[in-house]
């Protein structure tokens, strides 16, 4: 059987498809970081990072006014989500996606329950205590990179995370 080749644009049409094809065409060579896996996956602690803009209902919500005032980027802050988070605990604040799938089942974009199951099957060492989310839409990434990414990285290091799965939406 032929190996699968993902069609990146299958679910895109019209302006959105042309826009993303254009953005891909702008890609330039970039330095790629690399950290070898330190131990077998069955011994690794795994954390998840979602660009869906997921916040706990008990959190300060992401501020939609930031994007309303300047439509070139969204609220650049991030939220920490505990491993115990469940669908009823969250709201999704990304204004460029259909939020209803994640609001029906958080695991469609942040699979904390599936991660727990892999831990119980001993396929990973442990699900991390903390996962993270930010709003992935931005054409002004400076504040996200300056204000949010260092905080996420700091907490990942403090919690001795071995593997981070970045999950786009």
């Amino acid at each position, binding site marked *: 059987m032929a190996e699968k080749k993902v069609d990146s644009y299958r*679910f895109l049409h019209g302006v959105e498809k042309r826009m993303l094809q254009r953005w891909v065409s702008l890609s330039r060579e970039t330095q790629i970081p690399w950290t070898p896996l330190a131990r077998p996956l069955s011994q690794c602690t795994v954390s998840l990072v979602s660009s*869906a803009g997921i916040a706990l209902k008990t959190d300060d919500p992401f501020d939609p006014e930031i994007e309303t005032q300047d439509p070139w980027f969204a609220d650049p802050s991030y939220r920490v989500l505990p491993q115990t988070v469940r669908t009823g605990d969250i709201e999704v604040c990304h204004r460029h996606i*259909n939020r209803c799938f994640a609001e029906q089942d958080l695991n469609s974009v942040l699979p904390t329950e599936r991660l727990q199951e892999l831990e119980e099957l001993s396929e990973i060492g442990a699900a991390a205590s903390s996962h993270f989310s930010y709003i992935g839409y931005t054409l002004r990434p400076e504040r996200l990179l300056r204000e949010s990414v260092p905080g996420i990285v700091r907490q990942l290091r403090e919690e001795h995370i071995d593997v981070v799965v970045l999950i786009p939406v």
Partner: protein
Amino acid sequence: MIPELTASAGAPRIAAIEHPFGMTLGRPGDVAGQLAVLRATLQAMAEMTEPGSVVHLPFEWASTEKLRFGPPEPPPIAHYLVRHPWDLPRFLSRTPPVSGS
């Protein structure tokens, strides 16, 4: 989901999947499908040995049902570009105007 775009940001390991936006792991309630995707992603990650590796996951999105993948309302940038069509080239080239201008 757009692995070429992810690669352009310098991601060291990429597991590409042909799933609709908003359902990266799978459909709401599809426990087996979500688990299979997460398992395959982690296994692919563990097997990659070169920076910039891309593995195309073998999952097929077989449904022909019409699902709305976009947001319920156009985002602010869509309204903005209707009012400021001369900024469309900026949007396509990812070069926004200086903030506050």
